């Protein structure tokens, strides 16, 4: 690897990168064969990851509401989710096989369960940080509990929930690849079948790069979604608004939290990290 001079090494690396890119462009898709090529794998990857995240969110929000409402529920639920998160995904995929076979659910059920460990605490924390005087004001002007929830409490919780979604989605997108070992896995299939089984590096590199890109693009979309969903957090000169928004973000966003905080999926969840 360490060539006699740096020039040779750089030329070699450049040629390698060109070769990998060429392979990626040449195999992007095959007209007439909708199931071959990189593009169908990318679509499958997005389907598995996004469905898992959405199902996780659909479970986490009502569960989080219940946990915020009845305090006794939260500790046992949180412990259960954390124990589940200690189970490596590869093992869970195989343990699902007798029940779900080779359908998408073999990947989606474990992956949505993993998202709960990040999403649930964020939903609960988000709801709990609604200031008491705000809640009382809503009651005083005659809001019903449901209306209060939808128009007052949920909006306040949105930034925290999206912060959790960002971590959960990056983790899920990278974990989908592991499902290739049970015959699913989107870009993981590319890495395993086209790359490793054929001892060919280009598909592996293309797969890794696309997974990372997909994760970053999804993360950026969530940042934009938060910007659009929470117009009141944008500092617009009114005293207090921007400052409070910043304080809230600083207090809860898992992105800045240490790797162990409830924001550290494969890289670092607060509870036991789900392994891959």
């Amino acid at each position: 690897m360490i060539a006699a001079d740096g020039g040779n090494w750089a030329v070699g690396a450049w040629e390698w990168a060109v070769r990998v890119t060429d392979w990626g462009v040449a195999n992007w898709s095959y007209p007439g064969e909708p199931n071959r090529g990189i593009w169908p794998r990318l679509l499958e990857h997005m389907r598995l990851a996004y469905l898992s995240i959405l199902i996780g969110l659909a479970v986490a929000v009502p569960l989080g509401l219940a946990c915020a409402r009845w305090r006794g529920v939260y500790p046992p639920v949180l412990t259960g989710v954390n124990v589940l998160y200690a189970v490596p995904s590869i093992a869970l995929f195989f343990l699902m096989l007798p029940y779900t076979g080779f359908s998408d659910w073999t990947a989606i059920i474990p992956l949505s369960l993993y998202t709960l460990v990040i999403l649930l605490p964020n939903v609960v924390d988000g709801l709990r940080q609604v200031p008491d005087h705000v809640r009382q004001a809503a009651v005083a002007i005659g809001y019903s509990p449901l209306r209060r929830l939808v128009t007052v409490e949920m909006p306040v919780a949105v930034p925290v929930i999206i912060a959790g979604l960002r971590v959960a989605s990056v983790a899920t997108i990278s974990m989908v690849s592991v499902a290739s070992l049970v015959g699913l896995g989107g870009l993981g299939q590319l890495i395993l079948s086209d790359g490793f089984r054929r001892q060919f590096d280009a598909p592996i590199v293309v797969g890794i790069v696309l997974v990372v890109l997909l994760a970053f693009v999804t993360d950026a979309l969530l940042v934009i979604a938060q910007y659009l969903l929470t117009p009141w957090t944008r500092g617009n000169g009114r005293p207090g608004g921007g400052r409070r928004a910043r304080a809230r973000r600083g207090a809860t966003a898992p992105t800045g939290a240490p790797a162990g905080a409830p924001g550290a999926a494969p890289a670092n969840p607060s509870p036991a990290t789900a392994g891959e």
Partner: protein
Amino acid sequence: MDILNELVAWFSDPAQWSGSAGIPARLGEHVYYSLLGLLISAVIAVPIGLFTGHTGVGGFLTASLANFARALPTIGVLFLIVLAAGIGLVPVVAALVALAVPPILVNTHEGVRAVEPRLRDAALGMGMRGREVLFKLELPVATPLILIGMRTAAVQVVATATIAAYVGVGGLGRYIVDGQARQDLTMMLGGSLLVVALAVATTLLFAGLRRVLVAPGLRAESAVAR
């Protein structure tokens, strides 16, 4: 519940508990790879994290590294390293190290950064200097977070060491790979259950380490924080 009976039969077969393909031997291999990977990672990541945390150099870099590492698909990293370096213990451990370093590094860095300035002021006021502040104040205070990073890394390493069987080495993943090759569902599930047990045991081990290594005065406080 046929499959449960078969699993019980698989686990209670005495042949399963001896020999080089027996559960104790496979478990030993798995623990060996994982421990080796984790120890090397800790030796690399903890000193660097202490340095960057203490001096404040490279904070942005470690945060970016953690984000990037979180997005990396582990099987891709493992397969790529093995493809480049060949099959064997060294490439597998190298892949495990590549996966375990970021969480440990980031947690160490953040742990040291999170030490309250007034504590640091107090240490300076008591006459401690650079290295003393680091080892007598910052390291103990950061220990809970470092342990969380190690636990995160350890569970990930245990999980990824399973995939190492796909590249031709031993460990509990062999049951999954061989079971897949022989269409033997019981063997695959048995192997998966063993991996689950090992991962849960790893988590418990770190809960125990936390009791031993974290100073009593810090334990109550960080329990609240968590």
